[in-house]
């Protein structure tokens, strides 16, 4: 199994979710994060004090998939999340050694 972690633009979440469920992936976990990268942030002004806000709101989607489905999932995410504009985000793939479904105790691919 692999963990696919995608950092995407917040308003793309719905499309990414749809793309993944279309592949038959039935679970994922999502976190609100702040991203720093080439896409530059903005300046906020409070009583004349300017603060550079360099971190931008992003969404982190984590989905663990059977190794066989990694490529299709990567492609689906990329297609759904892409606007072509800077700041679209990254996808990282890392190994998962073991998975358990808490409710049943099932493990590995069966637990996904």
């Amino acid at each position: 199994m692999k963990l696919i972690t995608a950092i995407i633009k917040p308003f793309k979440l719905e499309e990414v979710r749809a793309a993944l469920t279309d592949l038959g992936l039935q679970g994922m976990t999502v976190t609100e994060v702040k991203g720093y990268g080439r896409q530059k942030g903005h300046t906020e002004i409070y009583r004349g004090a300017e603060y550079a806000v360099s971190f931008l709101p992003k969404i982190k989607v984590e989905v663990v998939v059977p190794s066989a489905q990694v490529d299709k999932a990567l492609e689906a995410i990329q297609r759904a999340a892409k606007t072509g504009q800077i700041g679209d985000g990254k996808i990282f793939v890392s190994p998962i050694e073991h998975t358990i479904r808490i409710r049943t105790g099932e493990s590995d691919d069966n637990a996904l």
Partner: protein
Amino acid sequence: MNFNGLKRLAVTASAAAALYAGSALPSLAQDTPTLNSGDTAWMLTSTVLVILMTVPGLALFYGGMVRKKNVLSVLAATFATFSLLTILWFLVGYSLAFTDGGANQAYIGGLSKALFAGVTPASLQGTIPELLFAVFQLTFAAITPALIIGAVVDRMKFSALLIFMAAWMLLVYCPVAHWVWGGGFLASDGVLDFAGGTVVHINAGIAGLVACIILGRRQGYGTESLAPYNIVYTLIGASLLWVGWFGFNVGSALAAGTGAAVAMTTTQLATAAAALAWMFSEWLVHGKPTLLGMASGAVAGLVAITPACGFVDPKGAVVIGLAAGVICYIFSTGIKRALGYDDSLDVFGVHGVGGLVGAILTGVFAAEAWGGKAGLLEGNFAQVPIQIYGCLATIAWSAIATAVILFILKFTIGIRVSEAAEVEGLDVALHGESIQ
């Protein structure tokens, strides 16, 4: 027995029209009018209450309903509008609405009181200082355009918004206020509008509808979740609207007398009835009674009772509230969605529709013993048509003038923010601020 308040109401199309009634009915004014400290105390309070309705009331009611990234922009639009229109009212608005327009008196006032010229500390309006009357009316002129903000949130340019507000107050609000309260043609024709159902709510409601259509829908309308950020803010706002509206409606009696007591009673009952009506409708249709629904219902009730509050009895008020709750619910949910315009926070669905319901039912329930004029139920079949005629005149003028102003802005400075700004959110894009 003191029929002070009632008498005044009985002879005027609306309380505010007392200005003109005074000269029109010299026989009543045997005594030189003198300042009454009780009436003045209540009108000072009423003025403060209408300000409470606007900022923070209306600002929070609307602010809580948008997404997090746009909350501050809604508050800013309301606050800046309120400030700008205060100054404009002083410059020319008061004069345009409430002075004699000479040859054009049927349609608009003159400039004789621009910059409050001639209004001295000693000038009276009935039993209160004229300055106080002018500031009380100021609060009406400032909140009415601000109501329109709800239709254009999340996407209108701040600069265009401010210019629109200024133009709209001068070209739409001031004339219509003059028609009804300044001795214009609707007053002469006998339209009943105690505290501004037509002048304020139908007027703003129609403008909101026109504005949201010209501006176009928000990005993501119908596809993304545009769920409100924080209904707690909306609830605070709705409650302050309820509270402050007593200044609006009861203050329109211009005196702390029996007329005020009538307006307070009818306002409280209609509002509660409408809140329940919307809540139960929704419970029936969607299976759940929402807080946003109750709050929306309350506002719909406040809107609908506004023209009627000094003319109907408590039972009439309850019926008006129930009708407003159900009908505004239907418009703001089903019908809006069916038609597909994005009146984002239901300015038309609540203020326009609620205003129409109230204006027409005022003609039905007006009762001689409660406000001095008979309605349909007391056999006066003429009043409902007169009310409808008042609505149509207002709708026509509001729609046309709003469209003209917005098209001019659209083809000059533009009225909509860039797509990128809309995605980023107006708080950061336009105001350089954000909620953390």
